[in-house]
């Protein structure tokens, strides 16, 4: 495998992990700001924090695992993901994360409530889980011979 192909593959994975961590931290920041501005009280803050953590944990955990796990194997060129699989994973990740962020931002920007936002986030996350889990799984599991 050439050096440029390896760098491109690493670059793609970095993009994916950056997207996930950006939205993960952005939604966490919204919950924290709501609490610090006293728009929600401690019980709701802790409940929202737990939900936020539970919502992102499977994806962030899996992506991080794939990222570090495959990075070690990169030199032996066993796994190379196709461009199509990467874009599919990226687009699905962005859709999932934007929807979740908008639902959370509803409590912050459009006079909504954290209880409603959390309820909708759980529902929507469950509905879209097959999309994002499938595309990410396909991207990282996509192998072709060196």
């Amino acid at each position, binding site marked *: 495998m050439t050096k440029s192909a390896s760098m491109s593959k690493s670059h793609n994975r970095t993009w994916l992990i950056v997207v996930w961590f950006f939205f993960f931290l952005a939604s966490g920041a919204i919950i924290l700001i709501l609490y610090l*501005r*006293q*728009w929600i*009280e401690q019980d709701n803050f802790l409940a929202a924090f737990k939900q936020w953590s539970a919502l992102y944990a499977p994806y962030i955990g899996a992506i991080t695992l794939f990222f570090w796990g495959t990075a070690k194997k990169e030199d032996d060129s066993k796994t190379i993901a196709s461009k199509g699989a990467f874009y599919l994973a990226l687009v699905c990740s962005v859709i999932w994360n934007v929807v979740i962020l908008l639902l959370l931002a509803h409590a912050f920007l459009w*006079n*909504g*409530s954290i*209880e409603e936002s959390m309820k909708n986030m759980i529902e929507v996350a469950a509905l879209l889980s097959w999309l994002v889990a499938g595309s990410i799984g396909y991207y990282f599991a996509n192998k072709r011979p060196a």
Partner: protein
Amino acid sequence: MRILILLFLSYTSLLWGQQPEIAFEIKPNSIAAGDSAQLSWQVKNADLVYISSVGKVSLSGRIKISPDNSTTYTLIAESEAGIIRKTVSLEVKGTRGDQDFPKSDEFKFKNAYQLSAPSFVLLLDHVHHLLQNMLGFQVSESYDRHTGQEKFVTRLSIKPELKQRTEGAIRARRIAYLVEINEFSASARKYPCTIHALIQYQRRAENRWRPEGDENIHTHEIKKLHELINKAFDQK
């Protein structure tokens, strides 16, 4: 001995004197939610007549009512001989709207007063009119036989004036009142009264209503209601 004879005579004169006579009925006594029933009454030997949840009424009459939930109506007839009550109940099958009035134990802050009024019925009518018509609350009235208290409980209602402009983190506050007026201890047209207030607040990004812990806000609102009751009497 003379005192006992005098007491006996005054007691019997009260009994044989101008005790109000009440005929009070409701037809039908069971309706479906949204339907109406008719209250009718005829009272003799009384100066003033009051029906709970209706207000001060003439000595005889009829009125159509359509409550949201099952309600007990109490007719109070007042004369020089005293006060007499009669109650009728209306069962409402199926219910409309929000059922919940705050329970007595939810009210944590109260103040006691002595209210001056020309009569018990006029006082009840003032409080009923003030809470329901002037302040716009939905009111539930009941009578406690054991304590002799007439109780007015209001539903929680959002009042924009309870939220200060500087309170950016608060979306709204709402308030309910419980007014207890004691008839038994009445002397010289002064009626012991306790006004309770329950204030709740809602944070800007929450649905939940939480009890307001600030005693000053409660005390301020209780005093305001007391002043309004007194003011209404002054005007009349």
